[in-house]
């Protein structure tokens, strides 16, 4: 696990995402519109809250891996926070330290054959560092 102080986490996220997470006023529109919210351990709004509170355990959340960057939260945030970029920043913090989430060699030959290449490349880009 990465040792991060709350401040370091906030700085890393703001730098990588280019977003001001403290602009969030917790209206929850991001969560309300997220098609994956029901599968998530932290809702998108909670992810923002954890970052604001400096709680680095947000990096253990499954939420950041379930986000598929569909940009629904991004277009709905009343404060203009591009939440998809915040999620990407959290993924990248982990991926750049070697915790890949996708192993192409685990796919069966049949799966490799039938999956569209854009699924494989997009998955690799989002889930491999």
């Amino acid at each position: 696990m990465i040792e991060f102080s709350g401040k370091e986490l906030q700085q890393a996220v703001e730098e990588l995402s280019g977003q001001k997470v403290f602009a969030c006023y917790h209206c929850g529109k991001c969560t309300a519109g997220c098609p994956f919210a029901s599968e998530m351990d932290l809702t998108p709004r909670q992810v923002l809250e954890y970052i604001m509170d400096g709680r680095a355990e947000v990096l253990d959340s499954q939420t950041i891996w379930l986000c598929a960057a569909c940009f629904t939260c991004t277009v709905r945030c009343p404060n203009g926070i591009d939440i998809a970029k915040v999620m990407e920043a959290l993924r990248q913090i982990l991926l750049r330290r070697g915790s890949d989430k996708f192993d192409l060699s685990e796919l069966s030959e049949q799966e490799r054959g039938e999956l569209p290449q854009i699924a494989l490349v997009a998955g690799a880009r989002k889930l491999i560092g």
Partner: protein
Amino acid sequence: MRILYYPGCSLKTQAAGFDRSARAAMAALGVELVELERWNCCGTISSLTTDDLMRQLAPIRNLIRVQEAGEERLTTACAMCYNTLKRAGLRVQEHPEELAKINAFLDEEPDYRGGVRVLHLLELLRDELGFEAVAKRVARPLLGLKVAPYYGCLLLRPRGVGLDDPENPSILEELVRALGAEPVDSPLKTQCCGSYHTATHKEVVAKRAHKILSDAAIRGAEIVISSCPLCSFNLDNRQRLVQETYDGFAPLPVLYFTELMALAFGLEEASSSLEQHYIDPRPLLLEHQLLRT
């Protein structure tokens, strides 16, 4: 009209019918899609961090190819290619310092000067040809066919990149009407299909597909149209898993919007790719007398 066209990887392989029907339908409207020379991967999906210039090289290189061809516009049919190419172009337009870095790195290429417009075929239909011209070309109106447009994410979002209102788009409905069919509106038409999770979490995708397709079916849809090979795979091929997982689910065929156009224009290309879909749309089309037996 001749216009540069970027097919992308999927339209050359799994979604070959999308490519074939796009070329044929546009040709029927007097538009020749001229394939971009030496195109490479569009980048597939936009990387979203501030320091990911390396991942902008592939899309920018394609825009350099457009510039080399002496053109200012590039069309695509695939929603993912459209989004990734357009987004990269807009990004370097807004950040000249990033463009300078990319140009310096791509030292074997001429500098990208900016200004190439990336257009989706749907925009070309709406903004330049007009849906009236589309309606005039219809040889076999798709009367009585109930079609649910599925937009997904990348045709619409983020704002400024998408080609229509991100919350309430209508461009596909307009096309469906122009072809003589009846559009069926579903509030889930803009909700994500699960995208690349299909490679790692197919049960998540099956859940999405089940929800999206069931809602369209409840509202009377007989068929769904899409403009993305990944959405199509998730909504069409994943129906095998949807059927295994959810009792009582009735399959729904998924076509590319260009296939629907080719069908309404009475083009041979319309029927050549129909059998490649997982859920065979031919029985439904025969029932509506939209296919020659």
